[in-house]
């Protein structure tokens, strides 16, 4: 390769004189001499055929922002989408803190030079544990789906059993991930649910609970928004069958709804995206797993667990608890695996929870419920539209059944879109039994006026 004359701002030693001097000090004439381990047949022939670059930052900015401008955001339009990713308000402090370069550009420093990161994530774990009313929480996993999967595999290792019973009203996207994660180490069976109530079918559950079942898994709220209030019974049934209970929970509900630990769950898991993390087109996810402070559980976590420790200077010190569990320490004999997951989102959630505090989480739950109840009511009053099934109490999301309008959800959503509204998630493929139904989501950002506007536009469209 001919030596380039361009000096790259991100590559200081591309400067020809420095490059030359360094080559000289290294004792070679060219970089190629340092690449002799790479034989000719492995070398790429010619140059990569990539587009002409935008070397000037101003040009790059215009190019990239030009592409991005083709997106329409959930702020520009009015959005009723949820289904596992939520448009909650992100307190500005959250972005301020996670945007600080000390956190953003750090990685794997030791507790001596990266004390702050350890403390922030220890505090994250501590606040999550309180929210969940459990004793232990991990550094975030990739997402709630991984947290669910790992919870099930922890249950499997603890019980020595290989089957998971999964609620039929769980999030279908998550189900696909869980299936991938469990395959082929664990098998999966789906528990039926009652269409009318939206709750689990305990009879069906009972019939499936056998000695090979490691865990019973359900979500609260369910994918369709319903609060599963039979948790205690389910946990009892599982316990009696020697299985553990794993509950996936929306943490934004926990200011007003009981955490799974209170109705018998052995492992609670979920996604922290609702806790102050931008949706990022679904990239703002991160998973948590909470348990009791029981060595049997702790030792089955594959994730990093930051613990607190004394120092010779009497400061708060931190470090990895039970490092030997991890794949960093023990490769092929580790508990599953750990890697770069979603730590920064953990810090985001920490700042979020510290800002919200107990009262904020309670207020959040309250306003979401109030506005959801209102929305469910007024949408349900539109002729041909029903919001009464499932009949259970719903948190944040509920099913809007449009079957009787004679229109397809897709068609109605297209019309809503043309009026600047993202309608609810179309359920007709994943839940054909619900006919033409959509899952509408009401966060605290949706005001009464927004709901009224939706109703008005929906009314227009439907008549």
């Amino acid at each position, binding site marked *: 390769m001919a030596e380039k004359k361009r000096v790259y701002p991100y590559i200081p030693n591309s400067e020809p004189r420095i490059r030359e001097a360094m080559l000289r000090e290294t004792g070679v004439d060219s970089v190629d001499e340092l690449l002799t381990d790479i034989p000719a047949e492995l070398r790429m022939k010619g140059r990569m055929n990539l587009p002409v670059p935008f070397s000037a930052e101003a040009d790059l900015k215009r190019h990239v922002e030009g592409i991005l401008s083709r997106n329409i955001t959930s702020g520009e339009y009015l959005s009723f989408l949820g289904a596992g990713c939520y448009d909650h308000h992100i307190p500005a402090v959250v972005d301020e803190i996670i*945007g600080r370069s000390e956190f953003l550009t750090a990685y794997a420093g030791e507790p*001596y030079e990266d004390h702050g990161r350890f403390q922030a994530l*220890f505090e994250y774990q501590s606040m999550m544990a309180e929210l969940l009313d459990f004793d232990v929480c991990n550094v975030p996993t990739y997402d709630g789906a991984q947290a669910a999967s790992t919870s099930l595999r922890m249950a499997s290792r603890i019980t020595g059993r290989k089957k998971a019973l999964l609620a039929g009203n769980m999030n279908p996207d998550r189900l696909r991930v869980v299936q991938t994660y469990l395959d082929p180490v664990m098998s999966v069976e789906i528990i039926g649910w009652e269409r009318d109530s939206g709750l689990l079918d305990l009879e069906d559950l009972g019939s499936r609970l056998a000695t090979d079942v490691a865990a019973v898994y359900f979500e609260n709220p369910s994918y369709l928004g319903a609060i599963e209030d039979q948790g205690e019974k389910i946990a009892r049934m599982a316990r009696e069958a020697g299985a553990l209970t794993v509950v996936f929970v929306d943490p934004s509900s926990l200011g007003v709804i009981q955490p799974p630990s209170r109705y018998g769950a052995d492992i609670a898991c979920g996604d922290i995206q609702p806790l102050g993390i931008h949706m990022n087109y679904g990239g703002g996810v991160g998973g948590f797993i909470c348990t009791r402070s029981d060595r049997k559980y702790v030792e089955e976590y594959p994730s990093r667990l930051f613990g607190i420790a004394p120092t010779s200077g009497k400061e708060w010190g931190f470090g990895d608890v039970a490092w030997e569990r991890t794949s960093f320490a023990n490769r092929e004999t580790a508990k599953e695996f750990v890697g770069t997951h979603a730590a920064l989102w953990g810090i985001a959630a920490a700042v979020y929870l510290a800002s919200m505090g107990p009262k904020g989480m309670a207020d959040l739950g309250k306003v979401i419920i109030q506005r959801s109840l209102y929305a469910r009511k007024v949408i349900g009053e539109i002729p041909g539209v029903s919001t009464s099934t499932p009949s259970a109490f719903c948190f944040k999301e509920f099913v809007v059944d449009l079957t009787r309008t004679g229109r397809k959800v897709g068609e109605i959503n297209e019309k809503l879109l043309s009026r600047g509204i993202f309608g609810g998630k179309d359920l007709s493929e994943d839940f054909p039994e619900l006919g033409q139904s959509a899952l509408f989501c009401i966060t605290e950002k949706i005001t009464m006026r927004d709901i009224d506007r939706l109703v008005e536009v929906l009314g227009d469209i439907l008549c």
Partner: protein
Amino acid sequence: MTSRIRPFHHMRWNEPIIYQLSVEGQRGILVPEAEKEIEQIVGDGLSSIPGNMRRKDLPNLPEMAQPQVVRHFNHLSQENLGADSNIDIGQGTCTMKHSPKINEVFARSHKITDLHPYQDCSTVQGILEIFYRTEELFREISGLDRCSVQPGGGTHGVVAMVSMVRAWHRDRGEDQQRDEIITTLFSHPADAAVPKAKGYKVVILPPDEEGLPDLEAYKNALSEKTAAIFFTNPEDTGIFNSRILEFTELAHQKGALCCYDQANANGLLGIARAREAGFDMSFFNLHKTFSSPHGCGGPATGLLMVDRKLGVYLPVPVVRRNERTGRYFLDFNLPKSCGKVKAFFGVAPVVLRAYAWIMSLGADGLEEASRIAVLNNNYFMKKMLKVRGCSISFPRHPGRVEQVRYSWEKLKEETGFGTGDVQRRIADFGTHYWASHEPWVIPEPFTIEPSESYSRDDIDEYLEIMEQISRECYEEPEVIRHAPHNSTVHHIDHEYLDDPGKWAITWREYSKKYTGYFQER
């Protein structure tokens, strides 16, 4: 030349645990309240919750006003380093490089942060175009054909690859038979751990005398039971396996797939690719080689590239372009897909940053990045090997690509101090280093990877720090013994992290176990 060594002192706030800052009644932010009209219609909402499910107590979160929240987390951040603040070349294998600030502008734009994954494709043409173009770029970078941006990190890239391997063999009816995956001792731990976790037997090839995967052992290990090989190359030692084509060809002859861990491709861009080395698939860490910041450990992306023949097994959905309308869309219709590995579609801001980074450099710039990374590494190695007590792993193979695993074996013999001691002391100089992956086959190891972002002065400064620490080990043992001195905290007692009776993973657990400062109840 005068010394470059700074009389550094890290920020030391002795910051309390956030619960110690909590004051009853404080509010950090207020939440919207339901409109009066709504309250009239639906009431307080809470009474609608089924009685047994209503949480009546408040969760025990800290109570703080906004100024105090900001100050606390500011203090914590100031007690952290990060690539923007230090000469971050000590984190071998992790390619700590500069994350251009313009890419943060893109990643923070509401045009990406505020997109919901289930928006209609017509409203997300921008991000889909980024995904699509990124795939096109990686075709050239890897030589492979099809892409998934779904994996949320390098280890997740391995998950995706293992899932692909299983889907492929299952489709051929060979899944039961092929239950072994071969990797090497100096491949990343994930290459062993993940296949294991996904139900494979894992065969680990030892290094030969030159540090390369032992070819004979490999031939013995290969069989009709082999589902795939999972190789990092260059390995964590920095040694490039020149015979890699031989390895992949042998695997193919046995019907196994060849999977490349290119989490760290930073020495090879435009130089040597997965395609030419005979791999069927490969993943790339966009948060390492492609400059997305590490975020204290994610969010991240292990972008997956696969050969054409494997395209149908990719995780769903994939991004496609309607050639007629020019519109991008998500294609979920892959009946043979290995499934999903991650919620939704991947970590959009990370992909966006990588796209922007590549587009700022082009083919020549990418290659220059790798060439300078290689030069920096060899320059550093030449000088580092002159530091007393330091040696290289596998001295019989002196060639290194973009990183080197070193050893303080001699230092340990001569002074009693090993890599952990050096690591503790280096915090006193405003930087850090990593003592390499376990197991420590190389005694007292450390791995340095001076990526292209670091200037010669940076590298020289770091070298001086290493020299000084080495000198101290020999001449001022007390300084080492009691290090760190100028860091945020002093010597941490690790017993409290390993002993189940003592450890505390949350403040709640701490408070249950202790009164006062680690005074047991």
